């Protein structure tokens, strides 16, 4: 979305114009869904969290600093809701032994060539390994490698220094690699 158009739409939203919010939602819902899916690893939950993020963001628009990119701010809102959700779910699962959640699926399951099938298999393993990482490691990999954000943007979202982000990315990648090795795959 063009920055000037976005700024104008957000100005209208702040003035209470609900209709101006629709283009914002449609422009960023995919990004938020990618983030939420990467963190919670469940499509239905991710969809609900995206909805809640937009509702929460609209109600809190006065807290948004217009000098910052809106996408970074709303990704931060979504990330916070995802973390809250995971903490609640962890508590719920400790009460309900059967609550193991839905099987994890890599989203792209279209018909593929042999080469694509091998790549798909690899990605399924990586997706599963990602799901087994700690919240801190998973979220930083989703933000850096899936959402392709810069360190300064991630630092704003997580409210930590850039050095901490770099350190988390380092240990998250190592953890992902260890997890993959435990699943029987290795790198040269």
């Amino acid at each position, binding site marked *: 979305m063009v920055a000037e158009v976005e700024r104008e739409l957000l100005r209208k939203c702040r003035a209470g114009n609900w209709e101006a919010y629709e283009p914002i939602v449609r422009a960023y819902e995919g990004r938020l869904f990618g983030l939420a899916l990467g963190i919670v690893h469940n499509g239905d939950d991710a969809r609900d969290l995206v*909805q809640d993020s937009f509702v929460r963001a609209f109600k809190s628009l006065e807290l948004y600093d217009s000098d910052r990119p809106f996408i970074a701010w709303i990704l931060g809102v979504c990330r916070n809701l995802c973390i809250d959700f995971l903490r609640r779910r962890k508590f719920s699962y400790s009460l309900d032994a059967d609550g193991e959640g839905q099987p994890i699926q890599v989203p792209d399951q279209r018909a593929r060539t042999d080469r694509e099938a091998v790549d798909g298999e690899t990605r399924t393993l990586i997706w599963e390994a990602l799901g087994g990482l700690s919240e801190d490691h998973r979220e930083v990999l989703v933000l850096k490698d899936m959402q392709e954000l810069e360190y300064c943007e991630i630092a704003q979202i997580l409210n930590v220094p850039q050095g901490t982000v770099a350190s988390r990315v380092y240990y998250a990648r190592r953890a992902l690699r260890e997890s993959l090795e435990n699943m029987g795959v290795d790198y040269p």
Partner: protein
Amino acid sequence: MIPPHDNSGVIPTAGEGCSDYQEDLVRFVDGELQGTDLRRFEQHLETCTECRREVSVFQSLKGELQAMGMKQPEIPGGSVWNDVNRKVARPIGWIFTITGFIMYLVYAIYTFVTSSGNLFEKLMIGLLVVGFVVLLATVAWERIVDYRTDPYKGVEK
């Protein structure tokens, strides 16, 4: 693509004395290392096999994660706009409805009290209405208290 496991059981790490380069290493992989830091790390890479290997692994993992196409995936069930619209519009609808109901109730009470009529009849109707409202309020309050204190409310059915 990830090659088969070599069964060595050893997870290579950055070489001896490389712990100072961990931050530089990930910044290098992510293209966020510049200037003298970049040149210093590139010089280190020329002499450190383990760091070169780790850079290669991290680049490969980064490539695989990016190739998943999860930056902006398609949302199952389409846009969330209608759901967002409903979630915001519904509370507004409740506020209007409850405000209108309270205003109507006040007006009805005023009209009822000030109208000419049999006092006994007014008393009966008044008791019926007040009794109904008290019952409704107590049931609603019990439900709210039950919900707030329910330790299982987060458990999905």
